């Protein structure tokens, strides 16, 4: 990248405009992979039940946050749920999957004890409210990604 000398309040300062280029791979893990694959292949949202707390966590994960026990009881939860909170994000950044404004929300799916973090779509911003009922809309072309859920839309 470019190296330039810039003027700062009359003073010459040397500024290096750099970029660290480090490709990475990330493993979603055994449980995380199955969660993402279920989105792709079955359009199903899978959670995991903790035998000790009896709570169902979505997305499925391998360890309970409360009792730290290992989890292995898969549970399919509903694609419908209730909006716990939301924001309309106006600030653009280069890694957003769609153009702002983006409505982000946390949705408690029926059958789950926690919320799933995602986006909302097909929604009139004036209608947004905590407690509104929403349903997952899946993409036609899915690739085992959290974005296989296109967004959650208001239930009519």
């Amino acid at each position, binding site marked *: 990248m470019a190296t330039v000398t*810039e003027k*700062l*309040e009359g*003073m010459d*300062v040397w*500024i290096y405009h*750099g970029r*660290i280029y480090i490709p990475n791979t*990330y493993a*979603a893990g055994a449980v*995380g992979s199955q969660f*993402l694959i279920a989105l792709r292949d079955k359009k199903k949202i899978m959670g995991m039940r903790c035998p000790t707390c009896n709570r169902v*966590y*979505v*997305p499925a*994960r391998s360890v309970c*946050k409360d009792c730290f026990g290992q989890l292995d009881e898969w549970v399919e939860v509903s694609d419908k749920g209730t909006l*716990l*909170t*939301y*924001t*309309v*994000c*106006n*600030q653009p*950044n*280069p*890694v*957003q*999957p*769609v153009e702002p404004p*983006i409505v*982000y*929300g*946390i*949705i408690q799916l029926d059958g789950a004890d*926690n*919320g*799933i*973090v*995602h*986006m909302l779509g097909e929604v009139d911003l004036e209608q947004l409210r*905590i407690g509104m009922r929403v349903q997952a809309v899946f993409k036609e072309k899915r690739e085992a*990604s*959290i*974005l296989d859920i296109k967004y959650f839309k208001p239930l009519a």
Partner: protein
Amino acid sequence: MAERAAIVAVGQTKYQPNRADASEEELAYEAVKQCLEATGLSLSEFDAAVSCSQDFWDGRTISNMNIQRVVGAHLNDEDKVCEDGINAVYAGMARILSGHHKLVIVVAHTKESQAEKSLIENAAFDPALLRQLGLDFVSAAAMQARRYMYKYGITPEQCAKVVVKNHGNAKKNPLAQAPLDITVEDVLSSKILSSPIRLLDAKPISDGACAMIITTEERAKKLTKKPVLILGASNCYETHYLGDRDLAECEALVKATSTAYSMAGIRNPIKEIDVAEVSEEYSYQELMWMEGLGFCSKGEAGKLIDSGMTKMGGKLPVNPSGGVISGNPICVAGMARVAEAVLQLRGEAGDHQVKNARVALAHGITGACGQHHGVMILGR
């Protein structure tokens, strides 16, 4: 514990939007030098250094690799903490309490002007489940603000009062970046970043450094007439996935507070604490954190700000310095809270001095929506 740890000197740069005139090393040294001048110590006398900085903000994968000279760490012991600066103070304290070290310098430095905030924050999120959504800490905080305000009936006006109070306090602090004469209406008419958070509800991009010297209580008395003792300290983390937390609550803060108060023997914080410096990156956070710190019951912080109790001259002034919202960089913010608490206890806070402050609270956060909290109780 056999002995207590004490802070004998603190130093801070002025916080500014862009310190392109200084390298990270030079910036850190500005704060370190103040500590050395105050005590007459030289860097060769320290047993160890604890620094706090973050690789992504510094644009190098070992952010502390180039500050050895200015923290006395060439051919000496140095550790880096990459969460908040209050964790570095904790680590410095732990070194003293271990008995292995008698004199430790602690330094935090960050130049937020050097990198892209939203990208660094996005990269903090789980790559499979959260990062691809394009979230950053503003959009995450906005969901917390909405949930908190909904659950407890906190109004945008009450959040805006925090902004007005803190930027107003900053006018009396020569180191503050953003002293502002603003009104609640100004806050509520500033542009929306991510609803309900507006531009003036959020802290600005900031560059700066903070340093302090920690030693044993015994040595402290020889180094200064006004040592400040660390009476209690605790940290607590909670789970990362935002959907797993009740975002209207700050359970990690409640737990960290309980331990810190217990160590310090605090039973009634409102009565026993004279001044608090809390890390509010967004206006709603000062309200939430006051509840977590037990300054009021859950959901009552709106009434607390309305009452004026946390203003200068109130029963418990919160953020006399102007707080994080008046401009402190990440990593430095929590250490700056400790430094400000020390200035208050030493009676050296100048125009933002709280009269006769004897016990002070400092608080720091790391991560989206206050995932990690550190609480420290200091006394003279």
